[in-house]
Every structure is written in structure tokens, then in C-alpha cells.
């Protein structure tokens, strides 16, 4: 089994990267419209709880995924209202969302804690494809449907952003909202939609954790993954396909760190994803001109008729 370490790195790396990818893709779209949402962690944890609660009550894990998307969307709309309509400080609004999300999910999640989910999402084996040498066993055996959803979303988003009219509109709102406005684009509506999409994806990322990866509810189970997703957006230079690579690199590194657990205290092992995040940000800053890829109007509220 010469390829076993490779297969397990690919398989486990992908499994770990799925929630990061889903959340990062959502945030990427929001940021492309010019809205930074530091509430990813909060939306993710609310999604995780809503997903578990709905899947637990209905017995259908897919209903859980839907409920998670809805919860994430709702939370994102709160951020949209504060940062787009009220033009409050985007950073603080997102932080508030994370705080409320973590607190509220802890409060409402009490009765669900420590209970396993009877019907988690099934793992998929794709016959035929899993026989492909090298890639097959890792990519197509025993993976989550949500991973494929994430990979598919990355492809579609890339096409949407660079090959469709809607994508141009979205990007123009993030680059130069005043010019987009002058061309008849409803800046507020585009930003609302993009932020809502970001929330839905963060919610699904949360559901991946609670109805699939570890089918249960634990307070604070997102453990900073929402923040890592934010870093992946930067590392990926706001490009959906690069986000796939960045998320996978992250998952693979994390898995490889586990292989050193005989030599490393478990606490240092748990530290690695956060250190990797810093390292990745430093590398991406060293590797290219710093603001490359960042939407020009990122984080700047738009007020119609206001000159800068």
C-alpha cells in the first residue's frame, strides 16, 4: 500500500476542507460585492445548531441542511441591514454577529448537547470514478455530498463571476459602486443578495459539522473555522477555484500534522490550524503585491450621492 498515505491525506484533507471551502465561497461572494462579514463564525455556528435541530426533529438530514442555510441567511441579513442600510462599522457589526451567534447557539443548544444524530448525511461512494488511480479512492470513496456541493459551487461561481453578466455586475459593485449605480445597477440589492448568499453558505458549512462530519451538537463546535474561512478568501485572492486549492491545502496540512502526533503534544496539534492560517496569510502577502485581487470598495459602505 505505497499510496495509502497519499490516499488518506487526500481523503481526510478534503473532508476537513469542506466546511472551510463552503464558508469561504460564501464570504468570497459577499466580499466581491464590497461587504466584509466578520460574522462567518457566528453564522456557521447558528447553521450548525439549526441544522442539527431540524435534522433531529424531522429525521431528514437534508432538511437540516436547508434549515442551516435559512438560519445563516437570516443572520447575514442582520449584518446586511446594519452595514449596508444603516452604514454602521462593518467590522463591528460582523463581530457583534459572531458574539450573538456563539451566545445564542449556546443558549438555545443546551437541550441538544451530547445527543448523537440518528440519521446523519450518508457518505457517498461513486462507483467507477473511485477506481481512478491516485485520485479516485481519496476523492470518490466515502466522501460527503456536501463536499461535492462545495466543489461544484466553486466551479459554478467561477463561471458566474468571470463569464456572466450577473458576475460582472457583482464585481462592479465591489470595485466601484458609484459607477455601477450610474449604470443603473441597484447597489444595495446586489450587496444584500451577495451577503445573504454568504450567510446561506456559512450555514451549510455549519450543517456539514453537525449533521455530517461529527453528527452531534457541541457548544462552540465551529472552533474558529469561520475565521479560517475568512483567511482562505484572502489567501485565494478572491478567486473561487483558488479557494478550493487553499481550503484543501489547509485540510491536508492539518491532516499531516496528525501524523506527527507521536512526537507532538496534542495541544500543539490543536494549535496548528491557527498557526497555519497566520503562516498562509504571511505567505500570500509575501508572494504577490499585497492588495492584489481585493475588491476596490471592500468594506466601504455606499451612500448614494456621497462624494468620497
Amino acid at each position, binding site marked *: 500500500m505505497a499510496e495509502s498515505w497519499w490516499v488518506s491525506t487526500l481523503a481526510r484533507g478534503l473532508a476537513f476542507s469542506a466546511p472551510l471551502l463552503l464558508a469561504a465561497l460564501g464570504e468570497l461572494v459577499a466580499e466581491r460585492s464590497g461587504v466584509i462579514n*466578520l460574522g462567518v463564525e457566528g453564522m456557521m455556528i447558528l447553521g450548525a445548531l439549526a441544522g442539527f435541530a431540524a435534522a433531529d426533529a424531522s429525521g431528514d438530514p437534508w432538511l437540516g441542511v436547508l434549515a442551516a442555510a435559512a438560519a445563516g441567511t437570516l443572520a447575514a441579513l*442582520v449584518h446586511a441591514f*446594519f452595514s449596508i442600510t*444603516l*452604514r*454602521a*462599522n462593518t*467590522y*463591528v*457589526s460582523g*463581530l*457583534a*454577529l459572531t*458574539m*450573538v451567534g*456563539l*451566545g*445564542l447557539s*449556546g*443558549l438555545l443548544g*443546551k437541550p441538544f448537547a451530547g445527543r448523537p444524530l440518528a440519521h446523519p448525511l450518508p457518505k457517498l461512494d461513486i462507483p467507477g470514478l473511485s477506481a481512478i488511480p491516485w485520485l479516485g479512492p481519496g476523492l470518490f470513496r466515502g466522501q460527503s455530498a456536501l463536499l461535492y456541493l462545495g466543489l461544484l459551487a466553486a466551479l459554478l461561481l467561477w463561471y458566474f463571476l468571470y463569464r456572466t453578466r450577473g458576475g460582472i455586475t457583482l464585481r462592479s459593485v465591489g470595485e466601484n459602486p458609484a459607477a455601477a449605480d450610474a449604470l443603473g445597477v441597484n447597489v444595495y440589492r446586489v450587496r444584500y443578495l451577495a451577503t445573504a448568499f454568504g450567510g446561506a453558505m456559512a450555514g451549510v458549512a455549519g450543517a456539514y459539522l453537525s449533521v455530517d462530519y461529527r453528527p452531534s451538537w457541541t*457548544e462552540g463546535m465551529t472552533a*474558529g473555522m469561520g*475565521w479560517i474561512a*475568512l*483567511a482562505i478568501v*484572502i489567501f485565494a485572492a478572491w478567486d473561487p477555484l483558488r479557494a478550493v486549492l487553499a481550503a484543501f491545502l489547509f485540510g491536508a496540512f492539518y491532516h499531516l500534522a496528525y501524523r506527527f502526533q507521536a512526537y507532538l*503534544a496534542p*495541544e*500543539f496539534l*490543536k*494549535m496548528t490550524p*491557527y*498557526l497555519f*492560517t*497566520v503562516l498562509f*496569510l*504571511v505567505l500570500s*502577502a*509575501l508572494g504577490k503585491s*499585497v*492588495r492584489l485581487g481585493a475588491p476596490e470598495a471592500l468594506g466601504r459602505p455606499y*451612500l448614494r450621492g*456621497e462624494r468620497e
Partner: protein
Amino acid sequence: MRLVPRGEAPALFVAAVSLLAVLLAFAASLVLLALYGASPWEAIAVVYRGVLADPRGFAEVLRRAVPLTLAGAGLALAFRAQFWNIGAEGQLLVGAVAASGVALFGPGEGVAKLVLMAAVAFVAGGLWAMVPAYLKARLAVNDVITTLMFNYVAIYLVEWLIHGPWKGKSVFGFAYTDRFPASAWLPLWPGTGLAWPGLVMAVVAAALLAWLLGATKLGFEVRVVGENPEAARYAGVRALSTLLQVALLSGGVAGLAGFVEVAGTHHRLLAPLQISLGYGYTAIIVAWLGRNRPLATLLTGLLIGFVFAAGDVAKVALATPFQLVQVVNGLILFFLIAAEVPIRYRVVWRPERG
């Protein structure tokens, strides 16, 4: 209806709107409490009796206010300089680690030992903040994310120490260090759990930072960098050095908060969640509520300290979970940023004319 930007709003108006926002957040919390199945009226009565009318309860407010004000005053300075330090939690924890190291293994007796503990806690917290600040100034690495990631690194550093090399010889199955020698304990206000030197430190730190911001060259540079980075470059402000000094001070006072917690309350290094109940994150609200004025964090730290103390009383009397405090704090932050609207804009009810 539309919003028209206005100039500087009068200070009294800003204070009144902020206060209204806090009151609305409290009202929303009571509604939430009712939905949770507890009686809001009983909650008010319980909090009044247990916190406001009871000197020992009020000492608890002060005990919470100390780390909140220390970290919050530092964040006020950081935010003024556009250094988005979300890492006060981690800076507090490494401060606690450094102070514990001196308490357990370091030299010194009596007051000298306590001073040494405070000094290393300050330096440790400051250095912890300077790394992200350096990365921000030199490479434009996003400071929100790096400071936050360093929180997790600090958490696992503490976990490692209390499970591994620093695990107490006399504590058997528990994960914490041995108790500090008595010379490393801060004295308490008689009859309460309040380490009064911590209170003194919080007041002095807030006053010093306010003076620094208002009357020194560094303060001037911070204000210029914060308000107009372009102009700062023309004025010859060395962004790197300014930012590093801000980070040292901001992280340093958060480190002091960690020192006060271990030397004043716990007398040992223990699990991160027991050292800090999210004080570092909550300090963001303290700073923001104080409009990033260090002196104002004395008041706002007290207010959020009250939320923590009230949450403790409610937990015992009404069996509400601790997370309620987090939710109340988050709601305060939301209502506060909503309050930005009447402060920054005039609302005009006439329709827009071409």
C-alpha cells in the same frame, strides 16, 4: 426618508443616544429572558437585590470591571490607530501565563515579586500583540484574522502548560498548576473578592492612556494615522513604529488584566475559560461603547462588569445559563452600532429632490 451626513454631533447627544441604546439592549434581553421562560420582573428584582443593593454584589461588579477596563482601554487606543486588535483575549492569557511563571518559579518576595509578575505580564501581552501589528505594518496582513488566530494559539499554550510541564505536583487528576506562594497573591478588599490593586491599576492605566492619546507625540501620531492615513504619511509619521508602540501598550494592558485575574482571583494558572470569561472579546464592546476614549472605558467597563455580575446572580437565582451574558453583550453591541445612525446622520423625512 433619507440620511444626510452631519458633522460632529454634540457630546451630550452622543452620550444620550449611547445610553438609550444600552437601555434598549437591556429591554431586548428581558424579552429574551421571558421567551426563555423566566420572569423578567423577578430578574430585575433579583439583580437589584443581589448586585446593586448589596455591597458584596457591587464588589463583584468592580472585580469584573477591572479586566474589562484594562483590556478595553488598550483596545480603545488600538482602534484609534486603526489597529483592529481582536486578540485581547490571547494577550490576557499570555499575560496570565507570564505572571504565573514568575509566581511559581521566579525570584522575589513580597511586593517586588508582584511588581515583577505585572511587568512580565505586560511585556508578554505586548509582544503577543506586536507580532500581528508588525505583520500588518510591513506586509499588510489582515490584523483582524491574525490577532484572532493568536487567541487560539494562546488558549492551547495555556492548555499545554497546565496539562504538561506546569501541571501541579499536588493536584493529582486536575489540570492546573500548584497554588501560588502567598507572596504572589494580590491583597483583597476586606470582606469581598475584589483585589483592590487591580482596581487601582485599571484607573491608572485608563488615565495614562488617555493622557498619552491627548497630550503626547505618540498620541498625536495615533490620531493622525487613525483619522487620515494619507495625511499621516505626509506629516512624516513612521507608521511601523507608531503601530508597534500602540500594540505594545494595547497588548500590555490586556496582559496586566491576565496578571490581575491569576494573582487576584485564582492564585494559579488554570483552564483558559476559567481565567477569562471572554473578557478580551467583551473588551471590544467596552472600547466601542466608550467611543474609543480610554477614560470613558472606566464607565463602560463598569457597565459591562454589571452585566457579568448580574448574569452570575441570575444564574444562581433563576437557573439561566451563562451564555445569556454573551447574548446580552452582543445585543448591546448591535444596538450601539445602530445608534451610530442618529449620531452620524440627520434623518430627513422629505423625499429626495432631483
